[in-house]
């Protein structure tokens, strides 16, 4: 069903909306530690923008812009970033994920921003990956 060519209205609206949806998703991730939001919510918004693109233009268009290999790398990169920040804290002599020792202006705030970005990358890649796997099955 998704192979069918969508009407020009759907295509135009999707093309206009996708940049704003992605910008809002990035805002929700980046601002997650200071206002309502966070990695999970922002990642889902980012992933839904790619789903909208694949509904309007087909999954091949999304695969051309975001290759499957990159998607798989992103899926593990977020978890790696999260666990990596935890291990960096260990290297600086604190417990796992105890951000207080990081060499920044506001270490705890920056540590939280880092793990929110990691969660956002993983959730975005997971949403798009599962969607792709489901609609291309058999």
């Amino acid at each position, binding site marked *: 069903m998704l192979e069918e060519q969508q009407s020009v209205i759907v295509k135009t609206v999707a093309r206009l909306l996708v940049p704003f949806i992605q910008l809002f998703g990035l805002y929700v991730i980046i601002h*997650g*530690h*200071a*206002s*309502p939001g*966070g990695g999970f919510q922002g990642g889902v918004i980012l992933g839904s923008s790619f789903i909208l693109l694949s509904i309007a233009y087909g999954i091949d268009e999304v695969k051309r812009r975001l290759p499957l290999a990159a998607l*798989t790398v992103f*899926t*593990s990169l*977020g*978890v790696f970033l*999260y*666990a990596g920040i*935890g291990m960096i804290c260990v290297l600086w002599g604190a417990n*796992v*994920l105890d*951000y207080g020792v990081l060499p920044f202006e*506001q270490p*705890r*705030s920056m*540590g*939280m921003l880092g*793990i*929110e970005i*990691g*969660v956002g990358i*993983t*959730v975005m*890649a*997971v949403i798009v*990956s*599962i969607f792709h*796997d*489901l609609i*291309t*099955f058999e």
Partner: protein
Amino acid sequence: MKFVHLIATGVTGLLLVFGTVDMPEFGDPASPASRHVSPRYIEESLAETEVPNMVTAVLADYRSYDTLGETTVIFTAALACLLILRGKRKED
């Protein structure tokens, strides 16, 4: 036989409702759940974590290890979908 199911469901429902009668009011500050760590989070989280968002402070700092587990669960879900759904199946 249908009546037995109906009676069993009704009795279980009544027992569950009876169990909730003496629970504390919703949002009661004197309830046991609100007296343990909640005051500490509300009063100290801004000074301890330098983050104005209390929810994120709990999620990403006090209980960061739990959130790492959540992220790993989502990662595992994507991995399982990839292994089951993607690629050609071997014919039996």
